[in-house]
């Protein structure tokens, strides 16, 4: 127990410490502190005019369409292209669509086993490239949002921002992480699979490839797509205790730094501290809950005359320790990472609820850039209700929140439950979902619910136990990922665009301070009411019903 607590504190607390200077650096970067780099980036795209929210959104959208188109073409034609030492064949177009949507949207939902599906070119030139630029898209969007809400006259230039994020944040960090995990034993090679003879004398094919580079950005950019099918439970993606710890740090580092970056750009580090505190509190609750629920043995032991007091060991990589399974599960779903360090399908029912809750809320640090953007929507709602309670027309940082902003915020907030619950309802009631399940009853329901939650939250982790490489699953989750990505990015930019056009009002003792702990409490409650209450019936029919039925 003590080691579990220590591990958690060291990883989460240590990352929080690292995130602080990184956030300051990123705020400087996006405030134009490095003029020569900015000049180079501007020249690369032939000049960088300042953009308003519409121009910025259009640029972002256009760039993402290019990303999608390029990678779709690459994946669809991989069998005709070089760097395919293992001779991967053509993939079905619905899988190509799903995979392209998945990596463009920073989701990395994988309805395949990479080592038996994609060529090295597809993985490195297509998917890994997307892991960089999709993450950069999210960070750029946050920078634009922060500039607008912080009182800058424009939102900046998307093309410069996306280069700043790629070349000055993601690439250097990815190199460090890749080097460290490569030293820990993650392969980095363009050679095809190794043919070996085992000690038993059997011939075995061991898949390998340029995994270290892929895994580094997979973790840093809250992507989560594994180079190998079993993701970070695979020994060649995550060989040692240290690689495990290091990868967990990489998962939450940039999402945490994004909060500080936001606070710095808007000139309110204290407000960022309150937001960070709320996120950290939610994270802590989830950590305690999941590690706690996982101390019970799996339900298979329920009726056996066996004393089992080491917790649930099913689906865990024991070389990494039993605690890191639920810890990783929480971190990967709090951020929209989605890599897995244990099989979520095998978690105890209530432990399995925790990652789902993480994806429903989707802003306990959240995806790089977008986590803070999601939080912004909750802040708008919290400020609105709290503002009235202090007897003033609600304002956020001096911007008055009125009908138009509320309409947009509600639109973005509603989209999440609509995508998750609507998708789950469709697949739970029809053969599209029912025929792909490995488990019946409440657990099977959880598998469907999890898949849609993961897609809508752009998380990408799988509950597994689901035969999800089917046409309906590929199309449906592909669409859910696309809507769940772009709506919650563009709409907040529109809100800020609308706020920027208004006269800013001064703050006084009579205005609601977004820097106080009271506001933190208000924000916390708002998140629980708006984010969690909606999903309570679904949770009751999935993990809670399973727990109450089987874990007596």
């Amino acid at each position, binding site marked *: 127990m003590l080691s579990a607590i220590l591990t958690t504190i060291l990883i989460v607390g240590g990352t929080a410490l690292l995130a602080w200077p990184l956030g300051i650096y990123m705020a400087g970067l996006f405030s134009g502190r490095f003029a020569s780099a900015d000049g180079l980036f501007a020249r690369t795209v032939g000049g960088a005019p300042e953009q308003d929210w519409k121009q910025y959104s259009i640029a972002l959208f256009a760039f993402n369409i290019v990303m999608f188109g390029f990678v779709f073409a690459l994946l669809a034609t991989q069998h005709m292209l070089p760097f395919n030492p293992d001779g991967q064949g053509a993939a079905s177009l619905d899988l190509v669509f799903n995979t392209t949507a998945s990596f463009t949207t920073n989701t990395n939902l994988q309805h395949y086993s990479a080592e038996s599906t994609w060529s090295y070119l597809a993985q490195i030139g297509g998917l890994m490239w997307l892991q960089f630029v999709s993450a950069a898209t999210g960070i750029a969007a946050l920078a634009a949002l922060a500039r607008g809400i912080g009182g800058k006259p424009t939102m900046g230039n998307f093309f410069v921002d996306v280069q700043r994020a790629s070349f000055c944040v993601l690439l250097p960090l990815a190199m460090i992480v890749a080097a460290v995990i490569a030293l820990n034993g993650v392969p980095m090679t363009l050679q095809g699979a190794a043919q070996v003879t085992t000690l038993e004398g059997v011939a075995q094919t061991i898949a390998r490839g340029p995994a270290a580079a892929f895994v580094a950005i997979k973790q840093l950019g809250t992507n989560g797509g594994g180079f190998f099918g079993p993701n970070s439970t695979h020994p060649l993606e995550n060989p040692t205790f240290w690689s495990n710890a290091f990868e967990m740090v990489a998962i939450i580092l940039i999402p945490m730094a994004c909060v500080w970056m936001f606070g710095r750009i808007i000139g309110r580090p204290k407000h960022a501290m309150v937001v960070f505190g709320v996120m950290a509190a939610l994270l802590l609750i989830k950590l305690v809950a999941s590690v706690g629920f996982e101390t019970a043995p799996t339900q298979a032991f329920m009726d056996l005359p066996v004393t089992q007091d080491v917790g649930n060991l099913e689906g865990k990589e024991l070389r990494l320790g039993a605690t890191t399974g639920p810890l990783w599960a929480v971190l990967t779903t709090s951020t929209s990472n989605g890599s897995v360090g244990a099989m979520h399908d095998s978690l105890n029912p209530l432990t399995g609820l925790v990652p789902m809750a993480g994806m429903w809320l989707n802003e306990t640090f959240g995806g790089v850039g977008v986590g803070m953007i999601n939080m912004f929507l909750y802040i708008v709602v919290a400020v609105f209700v709290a503002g009235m309670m202090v*007897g003033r027309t609600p304002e956020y940082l001096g911007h008055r929140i009125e009908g138009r902003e*509320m309409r947009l915020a*509600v639109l973005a907030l509603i989209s999440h439950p609509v995508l998750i619950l609507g998708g789950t309802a469709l697949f*739970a009631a029809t053969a599209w979902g029912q025929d792909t399940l490995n488990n019946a009853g409440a657990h099977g*329901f959880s598998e469907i619910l999890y898949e849609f939650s993961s897609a809508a939250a752009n998380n990408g982790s799988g509950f597994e136990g689901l035969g999800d490489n089917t046409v309906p699953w590929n199309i449906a989750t592909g669409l859910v990922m696309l809507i769940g990505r772009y709506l919650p990015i563009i709409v907040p930019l529109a809100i800020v665009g609308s706020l920027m056009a208004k006269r800013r*009002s*001064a703050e006084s*003792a009579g205005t609601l301070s977004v820097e106080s702990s009271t506001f933190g409490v208000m924000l916390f409650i708002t998140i629980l009411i708006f984010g969690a209450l909606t999903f309570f019936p679904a949770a009751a029919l999935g993990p809670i019903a399973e727990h109450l039925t089987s874990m007596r």
Partner: protein
Amino acid sequence: MERATSGQTGLFQRELVVPAMRDSFAKLDPRTLVRNPVMFVTAIVATTATVILLRGIATGAEDIGFQAQLVFWLWLTVLFGNFAEALAEGRGKAQAKALRDTKESLVALRIGKTGDTEKIPATQLRYGDIVLVCEGQQIPADGEVVAGVASVNEAAITGESAPVIREAGGDRSAVTAGTTVISDEIRVKVTAEPGSGFLDRMIALVEGASRQKTPNEIALTILLTGLTLIFLVAVGTLPAFASYAGGAIAVPVLIALFVALIPTTISALLSAIGIAGMDRLIRFNVLAKSGRAVEAAGDVGTLLLDKTGTITIGDRQASEFVTLPGVAETDLLEAARLSSLADTTPEGRSIVALAGGEEALPSDAEPVAFTAQTRVSGVDLPGRIIRKGAVDAVLKLSDYPEDTVLALKKITDRIAQAGGTPLAVVENGRLLGAIHLKDIIKTGIRERFVELRRMGIRTVMITGDNPLTAAAIAAEAGVDDFLAEATPEDKLAYIRKEQAEGKLVAMCGDGTNDAPALAQSDVGVAMNTGTQAAREAGNMVDLDSDPTKLIEVVGIGKQLLMTRGSLTTFSIANDVAKYFAILPAIFVVLYPALGTLNVMGLASPQSAILSAIIFNAIIIPLLVPLALKGVAYRPMPAASQLLRNLGIYGVGGVIAPFVGIKLIDLAVAGLGLA
């Protein structure tokens, strides 16, 4: 203050409640309901439940009794919402009726081009017509006095029966339809077209007919509609989930869950809160021209307050006589006394009282009255010419020895620095000294300013005094800033400067020259005694013409928003308990183990659902008094305010329904209703 007292009687008077109940049914008209999306949706699903019930009765389905009760309570939820709104409107309607009776009885004596008069109904008057109003007649239309002076009883509008003087020219020329001339006669130029006069506006306001949703109300309605949509998704997907689990959930039960979860409580009370906010202002004898103005009052960051009448009592008091070197004190006292004996203003009387001695004017004295031109007053006695007045005015009267002037300046500067107003006294060209007139700060006003400051509101004192005097009074009264020797242009410039810094500014004014500043300010309260121009420029009119009320107006604006926010929080917080009441009840057939979630130990699934929906309905009338009166409001910083309201309405909103639903369940089960 007839109206103000009538407002303190009970909320649920018979004469208000009965028509409100009748109106609750009239308001079921879909065209009315659709203005409130959440209640409209509730009515739609209640209709659906009714259709299902009727079909069930026709086919002889089970559970008819349970379904009938659900339908009954669903409709009651809608009716309770209508009732809250009707009750809030009803309070204004009684006032409106009296005003309308006044308006319809008005007749006018219109003066034709040739000078003859004709008697016509007031409704036929047009802009620019001239009417004659004689003693005992009511003024037929809003207008400006163009000739004559009259004392007018404005009780019909203000509730204040003391007559006021209305005269041509100057700042007291505006008259209002429905008020009565009680002496003399005046000619009035009509300045309002029929139907747009003050009386019409007041009728519309108190009736709530001209009520438009404020920006904040619109935004809140959107949020509540959004919540309704979210719960539509949460509940609408349940049949699919249930079919996966191999069961089914009856539609009436789904409807009950849906209605319990959507924010019916706040939606039902929303318009009542808005109407009641305006009504509170009206009862306070302030007319707001729009709900927007009331909300803006809550946002005010800077209050511009006139010194006289608001910060200090209107009259200054003599507090000290200061003699010049070489002047006997008795000479000054005597001269001051004599020159003030004919001065019946409180200032004059205070000088006489301080000087002491004889209080009757000598028979051979000829008083010289104060005029705006000379700015001095005094008395002429045989061989003695005594004058007193503003220092610069007195100095202009003749040439004085330079050292005396310097000595006087020294004295008057000292008086000014102490916040007083010096009056110089001169007899036969010889300066005697100065009288120190002191401004008396109103008791308790300093504490009010401290409160305002804690609420983040800056107070700015506006005064015609010189900067020295103004600074001293400002320091004594505890205002944050002052504007000395203020001209209307200065006020306007100050307001613009504050607004440029992002603050909302409130001020009050009465003169025509205040009109630009009133129009520029975010909350401009025009005094009812003021000119028509001022009353048009402001977005509120204070019928009592009491500038102090600006402070309360801010409070009423804040209270309105606070009530809205607190009841929203309460309404949403209620959902936690409702989930725990209804979800186990409907899921227990799918997974029996989910009965564990029935933490309240409700008697049966049916009684649980019924209890939740009954609680959801009856909480509306229970909260009507709070919606109409507003939540308790005390000035305090925003952070404490939030914590307090979050504690009461947030935490209370979570706990209350657990208790309420459990109690109702005991009753429902006990009575065998389900």
